[in-house]
């Protein structure tokens, strides 16, 4: 099935798949009408989709090194765009993005700009050149361009820190969704998630991950968009929410005025027993906060996310799989288009969901109603039981105020269909979508880490004489070890010590952004410069993180420190990356210019035609 004209048949294959999935949704809707329980529908949605991914993973098995590392470099532009979009949009994007907008409003939306704008950097500075280079992994480029094992090992180290920070959060998300949908304990859910992830990647490496990611993208985008359009028409937002919610946004502004945006004190929240991780609305939905510091906070967050995007190895390596340099460029554009479909919908979902709860004129509105009345609503009861929503009557008037309603961000995506009166089949679909999003990102990350370890550390440094069979065996063993390590940390809920997903972006930008960019754009960059830059960037960034993040700073530095220029723990890349740049430039200029052969290598990297620098390895 995966031989010969498979590539030509792709549109047909995935068209059939999409049709089949839609039929499955309709069957589930019929099953719901026929009285199948909500729980069983959830189980069937997750089980059915995961089995399909596993089948794709099995069919894509390979014993060819080129197929294992770069999918044989034959993934067409548009399909690579879909795979990248799935690789990119994590479980967190799927379930938490709308929640972030819901609570954070305009300020939070710096993430939306950051997580999309970064692709312009990928397309102009990196992707086409790395594709021409013909490397298997990101450290492969750095190791060959600058020459030497030390610089290769340094870049693997940065890749490891950045990707591992990210992957535990993804395995955690697969565990959460699997446990909720299948009705099993969280710890078991994590291992179910891990096994699903490994089946999709172990036998076929990048080739298997590519074709499962395309399948996962189709599921996740259907699962995100159907509810958004349906909810919108149900609550009177119009059939095309993206263009029609102007009045709703304005209405939210009025309601914020009416109810007032109140900041709760930490002491009050503690006294009322608000469970951890739950949030309340304290910022304006569409209003821009006043003052230079607020502007800087927005811009600095966007910069970190954009530059971080352009340095994350699991994204960059997707563009190694296209047939040509030109295809790599176009593929970045398609990736962003597919990402845009979801990202532009998240604020619309947040707006609809917020209005449904806040507007007292709507039957779903709860703010401003009596607390006893709200507590008797079925969905409020159900989500309260699992500590996902919480009510604290701070002023004791028995009326629910805006600042007295607490909710976990995920609930916006997971419960809004129910609140807006959609059938349960939609909630089952949302579970399947969340699972697809979390799995596809985890796949890409686990593969990025294990490929770097097997190709750059094992094959290039430890045993350059290893034959194909041995290399692929090592690659697969490492894949299982990395996955298991991530699941182990996730199952013990140690993820809180690893902090935010945003850290992965900051780590990557601190240690990888400038070595990658200058490797192409500045011939004078030398090996010593790159080594010094990577080390200085990652060390200074990490030290700053420990200094500014209270959980680390209290034991390490003896107290809580005020962020320097508003650069808090989400933005520490703004310390690491500039230091990396300065050190790299200074050291490069102090050392001897790269040899003519290296300069020629850079010249060849810059033009699309001709042989790749690294051929089949």
């Amino acid at each position, binding site marked *: 099935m995966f031989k010969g004209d498979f590539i030509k048949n792709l549109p047909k294959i995935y068209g059939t798949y999409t049709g089949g999935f839609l039929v499955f949704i309709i069957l589930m809707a019929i099953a719901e009408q026929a009285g199948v329980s909500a729980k069983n529908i959830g189980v069937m949605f997750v089980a059915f989709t995961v089995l399909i991914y596993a089948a794709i993973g099995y069919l894509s098995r390979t014993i060819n090194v080129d197929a294992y590392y770069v999918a044989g470099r034959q993934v*067409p*532009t548009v399909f690579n765009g879909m795979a990248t979009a799935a690789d990119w949009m994590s479980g967190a994007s799927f379930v938490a993005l709308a929640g972030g*907008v819901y609570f954070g409003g*305009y300020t939070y*939306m*710096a993430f*939306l*700009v*950051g997580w*999309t*704008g970064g*692709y*312009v*950097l990928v*397309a*102009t*500075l990196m992707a*086409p050149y790395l594709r021409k280079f013909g490397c298997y992994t990101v450290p492969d480029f750095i190791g060959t361009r600058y020459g030497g094992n030390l610089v290769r090992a340094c870049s693997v180290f940065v890749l490891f820190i950045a990707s591992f920070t990210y992957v535990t959060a993804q395995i955690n998300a697969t565990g959460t969704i699997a446990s909720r949908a299948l009705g099993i304990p969280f710890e078991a859910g994590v291992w179910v998630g891990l096994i699903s992830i490994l089946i999709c990647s172990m036998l076929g490496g990048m080739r298997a991950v590519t074709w499962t990611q395309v399948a996962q993208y189709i599921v996740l985008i259907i699962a995100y968009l159907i509810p958004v359009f349906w909810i919108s028409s149900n609550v009177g937002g119009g059939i095309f929410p*993206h*263009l029609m*919610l*102007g*009045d709703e*946004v*304005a209405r939210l502004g009025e309601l914020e005025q009416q109810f007032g945006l109140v900041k709760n004190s930490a002491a009050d929240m503690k006294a009322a027993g608000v469970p951890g991780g739950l949030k309340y609305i304290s910022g304006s*939905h*569409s*209003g*821009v906060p*006043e003052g230079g510091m607020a*502007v800087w906070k*927005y*811009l600095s967050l*966007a*910069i970190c996310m*954009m530059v971080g995007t352009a340095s994350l190895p699991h994204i960059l390596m997707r563009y190694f799989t*296209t*047939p*040509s*340099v*030109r*295809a790599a*460029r*176009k593929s*970045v*554009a398609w990736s*962003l*288009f597919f990402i*845009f479909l979801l*990202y*532009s919908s998240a*604020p*619309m979902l947040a707006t609809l969901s917020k209005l449904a709860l806040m507007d007292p004129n709507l039957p779903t509105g709860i703010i401003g109603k009596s607390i006893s009345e709200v507590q008797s609503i079925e969905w409020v009861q159900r989500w309260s039981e699992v500590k996902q929503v919480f009510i604290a009557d701070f002023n004791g008037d028995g009326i629910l105020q805006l600042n007295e309603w607490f909710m976990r961000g995920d609930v916006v995506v997971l419960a809004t269909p129910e609140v807006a009166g959609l059938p349960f089949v939609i909630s089952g679909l949302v579970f399947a979508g969340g699972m697809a999003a979390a799995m596809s990102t985890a796949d890409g990350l686990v593969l990025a880490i294990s490929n770097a370890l097997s190709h750059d550390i094992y094959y290039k440094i430890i045993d350059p004489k290893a034959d194909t069979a041995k290399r692929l065996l090592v690659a697969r063993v490492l894949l299982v070890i990395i996955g298991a390590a991530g699941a182990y940390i996730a199952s013990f809920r140690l993820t809180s010590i690893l902090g935010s997903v945003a850290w992965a972006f900051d780590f990557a930008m601190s240690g990888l952004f400038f070595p990658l960019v200058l490797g192409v754009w500045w011939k004078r960059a030398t090996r010593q410069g790159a080594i010094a830059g990577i080390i200085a960037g990652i060390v200074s960034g990490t030290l700053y993180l420990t200094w500014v993040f209270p959980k680390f700073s209290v034991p390490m530095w003896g107290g809580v420190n005020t962020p320097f220029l508003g650069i808090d723990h989400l933005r520490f890349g703004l310390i690491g990356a500039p230091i990396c740049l300065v050190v790299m430039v200074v050291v490069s200029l102090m050392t001897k210019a790269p040899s003519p052969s290296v300069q020629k290598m850079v*010249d060849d990297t*810059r*033009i*699309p*035609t001709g042989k790749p620098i690294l051929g089949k390895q």
Partner: protein
Amino acid sequence: MSNKDAYWEKTKNHMFVTLALWAFFSLVIFMFGSELNTMSFLGYPLAYYMTAQGSLLAFVIILFWTANKQEKIDEEHGFSERGDD
């Protein structure tokens, strides 16, 4: 100047133009968020619209435009790949 150097010169300039557009839609407009929000587009306050949708769409358009433009530069200098994608 050799053909390669001329090609790289053009590619570099094209990169700067693309990054200028990128910086405009990702950074410059959000320096004036409060001012922009007094205007409206499709009924949305403008700064809200840009961060929720407008800038994202601009990035997509920039990417398709920049890829096409770069292909033309490739062609002009004879570095165009044969159609295999």
